[in-house]
């Protein structure tokens, strides 16, 4: 049973990495035209779970102006939202991520129609969390750093730019490349980032040191394409 569960877990992580890689390539302008539905090897529970894990980022290439994938992409996102809604005991990160995917679907998918209501997500942590915890949560929600999404979250993080910058440095020193990339992506979006932070060079370093982690590459590519920060 444990072996089966481990196999399933690893297969989800693999699919998440594959999809993240496809999105990163699309943001880098490689890999031809983008379609989320074409990235998924099969329309099964694991593929839908991967869409839910990556959240709004699965639609990031459409925010750049890529022609939307249309009906098949919309169906995939709808199924993922229906299969993995945040439960009653879901974490705030999970609720925020769900909101982000709904917001991105409304903004970037053409069909419109009735998308699920966005559930209320707690925001008190934006004021109360100490800076290491704040950075950790912000990095988990880096997909919401896409332009136009979650303005309240972006404003809350902009008010704590120095704390986020401190957390970025801490993550780099801890060699937590995914957290560093997520925090760096938010820092690319917020105004008034201290010059002394060296964000551009930091993002280049994080991407290089991550050893090709597709999720790190996705954050770095998004910071560059949407906010002109990081690797050129």
């Amino acid at each position, binding site marked *: 049973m444990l072996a089966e*569960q481990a196999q*399933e877990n690893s297969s989800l992580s693999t699919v998440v990495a594959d999809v993240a890689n496809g999105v990163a390539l699309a943001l880098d302008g490689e890999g031809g035209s983008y379609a989320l539905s074409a990235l998924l090897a099969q329309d099964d529970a694991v593929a839908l779970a991967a869409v839910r894990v990556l959240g709004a980022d699965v639609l990031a290439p459409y925010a750049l102006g890529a022609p939307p994938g249309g009906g098949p992409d919309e169906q995939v996102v709808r199924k993922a939202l229906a299969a993995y809604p945040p439960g009653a005991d879901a*974490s705030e990160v999970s609720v925020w991520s769900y909101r982000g995917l709904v917001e991105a679907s409304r903004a970037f998918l053409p069909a419109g129609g009735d998308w699920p209501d966005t559930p209320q997500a707690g925001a008190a942590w934006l004021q109360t969390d100490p800076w*290491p915890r704040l950075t950790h949560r912000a990095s988990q929600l880096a997909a919401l750093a896409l332009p136009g999404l979650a303005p309240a979250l972006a404003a809350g993080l902009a008010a704590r730019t120095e704390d986020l910058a401190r957390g970025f440095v801490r993550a780099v*020193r801890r060699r*937590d490349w995914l*957290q560093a990339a997520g925090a760096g992506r938010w820092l690319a979006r917020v105004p008034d980032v201290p010059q002394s932070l060296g964000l551009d060079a930091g993002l280049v370093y994080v991407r290089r040191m991550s050893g090709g982690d597709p999720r790190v590459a996705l954050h770095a590519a998004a910071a560059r394409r949407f906010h002109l920060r990081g690797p050129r």
Partner: protein
Amino acid sequence: MASELTAPVETAALAAEVEGLLDSAEPEGIYRDTRECGGGLLLAALLLISPPTPRAPKTDAR
């Protein structure tokens, strides 16, 4: 039939895994404070160069 019975179990396990990936704990980092490392090195060096503990000279029993 078997797949119909196992599907909800698989979905529930995946939902838990999704939650775990979304809200994963911060990994344990190796974080070394330069000043602490320097202090440790200094202490080790002092111990190495310190003279041996004085011992009472051997006295001849005869």
